[in-house]
């Protein structure tokens, strides 16, 4: 599992691996929003948590389809399936690698980008915490979607359609944590809900993904 995780990291960082793609998209999106909304700093600071969360979510989607599709194309997935490594472990390792190359950079960049959206300084910490707790769920759920669409050519759009509705609870509670944090309110309840969702999907979905993959490999 460790070797698969490090291999995926290495592949993501090397040329054409897609590392930084999500981050660049996130950056562009957040930079563009103020142009679209206009110079109303009051309004911007109010919508900042929502924009950051939606942006992070879309940026996450960008690199999902390569999670299993590339390994399927070059045959590694078949070989992994016949190896000693349990598929469940492989799915978990791949989701983790996806999070480290996508969710983690987004989380680290978000407080900086929050400045561009005129977020109140109190919110910086909370946007960071909410993304740190919420983005792992996006990688795990995305891994499930990627496993479902693995054999399909150009399955990216289908993947987005399948995965986006599943992101809704994470988005609601994540943005709520950030909004409440920015307004100086209590964040405990939505944060616990967010953490609960992340833990639940991380516990269950790798097993489901593995089952789906085995069916798709037939």
């Amino acid at each position, binding site marked *: 599992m*460790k070797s698969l995780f490090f291999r995926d990291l290495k592949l993501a960082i090397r040329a054409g691996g897609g590392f930084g793609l999500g981050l660049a998209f996130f950056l562009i999106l957040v930079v563009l929003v103020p142009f679209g909304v206009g110079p109303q700093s009051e309004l911007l600071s109010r919508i900042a948590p929502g924009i950051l969360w939606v942006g992070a979510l879309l940026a996450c989607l960008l690199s999902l389809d390569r999670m299993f599709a590339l390994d399927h194309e070059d*045959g590694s997935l*078949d*070989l*992994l399936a*016949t190896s*000693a*490594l349990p598929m469940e472990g492989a799915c978990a390792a791949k989701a983790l690698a996806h999070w480290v190359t996508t969710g983690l950079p987004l989380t680290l960049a978000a407080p900086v980008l929050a400045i561009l959206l005129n977020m109140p300084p109190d919110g910086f910490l909370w946007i960071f915490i909410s993304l740190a707790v919420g983005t792992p769920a996006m990688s795990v759920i995305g891994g499930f979607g990627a496993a479902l669409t693995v054999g399909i050519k150009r399955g990216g759009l289908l993947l987005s359609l399948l995965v986006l509705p599943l992101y809704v609870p994470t988005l609601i509670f994540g943005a709520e944590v950030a909004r409440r944090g920015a307004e100086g309110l209590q964040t405990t309840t939505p944060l616990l809900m967010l953490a609960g969702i992340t833990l639940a999907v991380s516990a269950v979905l790798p097993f489901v993904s593995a089952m789906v993959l085995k*069916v798709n490999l037939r």
Partner: protein
Amino acid sequence: MLDVKDLSVARGGVPVLEGLSFSVPAGQALILRGPNGSGKTTLLRTIAGLQPALSGQVEAEADSIAYAAHSDGVKGNLTVTENLRFWADVFGTKGIEHALQQFDLESLFDRPAHALSAGQKRRLGLARLVVTGRKNWILDEPTVSLDTASVQMFADTVRGHLAEGGSAVIATHIDLGLDGTNFDVTPYKATQKKLVGFDEGFL
């Protein structure tokens, strides 16, 4: 040691081969023969456990099967060594030098795999078999895009593997010069029947 008993295999829900029984003892190779589309790949995938059998069973020791098919599972962005070392880690074995040497890949060790020729890539894919340390090799047309010298290299490797008590099931169209039984799958062609299992048919 590999035992196949009364096995029927299907591709996409349609039975392809039925009533297959054979046994591959340690130190022996079984060469699968049959024209294109006769179901060799489906049979090998079933033996490797990648797809379920319609009926019958495949008996092999747990974790004893190494599978190699048309695609080599080689990552273009990783070097030859990194590719092999990854598979060695996955299979929990040590030392890839032996495999590099057997397939004459030593001089290419730090070459990114995307810069390899088709034949070199294939050699790298076959070298993976050596690092798996598994006993039963299930090979689907392993000699595609190999030149004569490389085919010889591959045949020597398989011979060495058999001499160490391993076994192999190889689907191939050429003569590898291995001592093993030939097994023609043509007589086992499944008779056309109505579709039985319709699940996943709509996907």
